[in-house]
């Protein structure tokens, strides 16, 4: 029989992905099943003869009847022989410790008459007593299906599996487990229950003939018990989890800073080098100010994505994640969130992009959507430069009791973001599929040491997904933004630029002063500058002038751009912590009509509140599009956060002024 494509099918937590990694090594890629958010993992493996075949890793599934988007994929592929991904052979992955339940899905595959091989995975065979299963007997009772024992961690047995695939002869005796064709039960949940019970009877019968020495309670439960006593403890369990969160948060926050600064610096150098060494012109500007910074703006996210997924993979691989869900479920449930929402939301305090990408592990579609929708409300690290600039500008440095007032305000902004996220989660709970109640039926797998290879593969996968899939859209938008703030109607722009005084010995202007003045005028008369001015009436009730308006638009690229934009408008340096000139300049800014300072307590707080809530990050929107496979969700997010930010900033300004 000619085999060109195999598919891995099996329950979750059976070692299916580690078998996939063992078979394909790093020779794997991620594709898309059309129209759904489930990733399609495809790889290539070499058979003993040297022949290369394609391996498809289907999502873990408990039965062919779909209960989730992922299980739907399995159903679509195996139920339809004309499906482009229909395999020549199924490698059914079953955990030797959970045979009874695992064989339910196998029995359905067999009744669908799909050629199959069973890969029995095990870790500590000797401990559980399950190792005594006689595979030739099991094979006999299952109709001569080839069975291979494997160790998913060490790879022991993988050669036998490959040989079995190569030598596969389709001479299975497809006896029927159940009289009814699985496909005929698709729309009858009650019949599915009866059918499953019937299958279990048959499976138990078979297993009773095969098992020679089966312990009633495998030893691995006892092992779990000791760790779970601490990790699920009503006090220590939560303390430990808080500690784990703190550790993850700290690492993303502080470790990521070094590579991020390096990436920032390198791309800045590249831009400078290009502007100096290439002949001046539109192309040089496009390259040095549009494309290179745009690429830097994408790559700068890699450290945070890599770190969060490194930790997330550790949590998932070790089996701890299901304990987190167990502990947190009741606490976050009232807000429509899921136990698995906690890590993505905490990750979003560093950066919403890895946070949103991390929601993949939330199996309930509704819970996942709610988490994605509110994640950008958590105050991310890109907001810090905006917050600190504005705090330095309008909040006096004094103490209230033992507390530094500036610190209190910063804390308040973080708290506001968290409260906003929880309240909006509550709102979305009633808006997104309002009837769907959701349930928790989750396996708590035994603890195990993470497999480093699997961890690294996941990290690489996520980084590539961001850089390749989201990167191209982000690059396109950032080039567009650059063009809109560098170019304007040519007559107007030329006139404005010619008005800037050239440096002469009399006016004591330096060449640098002249350049930064030119930049300021250019921004003011660019398309974005014109829009910023035009929208002044709309943002006046919030206490903003058109200069802030321009920065609001440019910082749609990323929040921290606000600082650079303000510096460019006032033609001063943007490093406000080293050099007071930006703060001094902003402090002296006076409203032409009222004669009052533009930046006072009311407008400053209003602007901070605006940045707490506003969706000022195109990269996040692009990632939401990637994760939901639709522009609908990022647009909803952009609009609702915009409205929320506007109203909250309006309220803040009107109350304080």
């Amino acid at each position, binding site marked *: 029989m000619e085999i060109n494509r195999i598919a891995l099918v099996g329950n979750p937590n059976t070692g299916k992905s580690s078998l996939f990694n063992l078979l394909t090594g790093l020779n794997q890629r991620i594709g898309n099943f059309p129209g759904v958010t489930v990733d399609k993992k495809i790889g290539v493996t070499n058979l003993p003869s040297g022949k290369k075949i394609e391996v498809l890793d289907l999502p873990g599934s408990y039965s062919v009847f779909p209960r989730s988007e992922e299980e739907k994929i399995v159903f679509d592929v195996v139920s339809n022989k004309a499906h482009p991904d229909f395999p020549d052979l199924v490698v059914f992955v079953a955990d030797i410790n959970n045979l009874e339940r695992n064989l339910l899905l196998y029995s359905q595959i067999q009744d669908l008459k799909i050629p199959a091989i069973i890969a029995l995975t095990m870790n500590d065979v000797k401990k559980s007593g399950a190792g005594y299963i006689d595979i030739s007997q099991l094979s006999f009772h299952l109709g001569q299906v080839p069975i291979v024992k494997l160790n998913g961690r060490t790879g022991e047995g993988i050669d036998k599996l490959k040989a079995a695939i190569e030598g596969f002869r389709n001479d299975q005796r497809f006896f029927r487990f159940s009289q009814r064709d699985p496909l005929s039960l698709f729309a009858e949940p009650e019949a599915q229950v009866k059918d499953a*019970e019937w299958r279990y009877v048959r499976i138990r019968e078979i297993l009773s003939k095969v098992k020679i020495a089966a312990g009633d309670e495998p030893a691995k439960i006892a092992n779990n018990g000791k760790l779970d006593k601490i990790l699920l403890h009503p006090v220590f369990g939560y303390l430990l989890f808080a500690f784990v969160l703190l550790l993850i948060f700290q690492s993303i926050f502080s470790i990521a800073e070094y590579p991020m600064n390096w990436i920032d610096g390198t791309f800045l150098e590249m831009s400078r080098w290009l502007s100096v060494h290439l002949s001046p012109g539109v192309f040089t500007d496009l390259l040095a100010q549009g494309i290179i910074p745009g690429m830097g703006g994408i790559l700068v996210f890699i450290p945070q994505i890599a770190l969060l997924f490194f930790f997330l993979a550790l949590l998932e691989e070790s089996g701890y994640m299901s304990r987190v869900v167990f502990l947190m479920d009741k606490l976050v449930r009232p807000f429509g969130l899921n136990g698995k929402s906690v890590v993505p939301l905490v990750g979003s305090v560093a950066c919403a992009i890895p946070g949103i990408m991390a929601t993949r592990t939330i199996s309930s579609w509704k819970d996942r959507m709610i988490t994605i929708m509110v994640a950008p409300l958590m105050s991310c690290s890109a907001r810090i430069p905006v917050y600190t600039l504005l705090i330095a500008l309008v909040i006096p440095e004094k103490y209230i009791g033992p507390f530094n007032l500036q610190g209190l305000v910063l804390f308040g902004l973080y708290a506001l973001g968290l409260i906003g996220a929880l309240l909006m989660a509550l709102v979305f709970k009633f808006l997104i599929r309002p009837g769907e109640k959701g349930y928790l039926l989750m396996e708590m797998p035994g603890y195990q040491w993470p497999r480093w290879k699997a961890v690294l593969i996941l990290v690489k996968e996520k980084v590539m997904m961001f850089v390749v899939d989201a990167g191209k859209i982000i690059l396109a938008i950032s080039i567009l933004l650059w063009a809109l703030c560098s170019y304007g109607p040519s007559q107007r722009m030329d006139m404005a630029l010619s008005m800037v005084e050239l440096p002469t010995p009399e006016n004591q202007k330096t060449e640098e002063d002249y350049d930064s003045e030119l930049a300021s005028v250019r921004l003011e008369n660019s398309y974005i500058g014109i829009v910023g001015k035009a929208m002044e009436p709309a943002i006046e009730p919030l206490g903003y002038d058109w200069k802030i308006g321009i920065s609001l638009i440019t910082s749609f690229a990323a929040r921290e751009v606000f600082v650079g934009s303000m510096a460019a408008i006032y033609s001063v340096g943007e490093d406000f912590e080293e050099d007071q000139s930006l703060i001094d300049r902003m402090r002296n800014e006076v409203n032409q009509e009222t004669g009052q300072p533009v930046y006072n307590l009311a407008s400053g707080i209003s602007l901070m509140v605006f940045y707490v809530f506003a969706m000022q990050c195109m990269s996040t929107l692009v990632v939401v599009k990637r994760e939901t496979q639709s522009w609908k969700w990022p647009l909803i997010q952009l609009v609702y956060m915009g409205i929320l930010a506007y109203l909250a900033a309006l309220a803040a300004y009107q109350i304080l002024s």
Partner: protein
Amino acid sequence: MKHQAIQRELDSFLPGDSGVVTAVAKGDLAAKMAEMGIFLGKKVRVLYKAPFGGPIAVDFEGYTLSLRLEEAHLVQVVPVN
């Protein structure tokens, strides 16, 4: 018939309690539960209860599932010592 007299919902079990599943309430979740191994005759033992009325962790003959009390309430179990 003897079983039915003393069977209780699984959510009323305390950590350490064991039993045998006698019925799963009909409804949307019944098939899903069956697929995950919660069906007639399965031996169960409650291992942990999360605080504040959170989920319970239950051993089903060798593997552990966690379920909310609402889901556990759908499962009838006759206690066994």
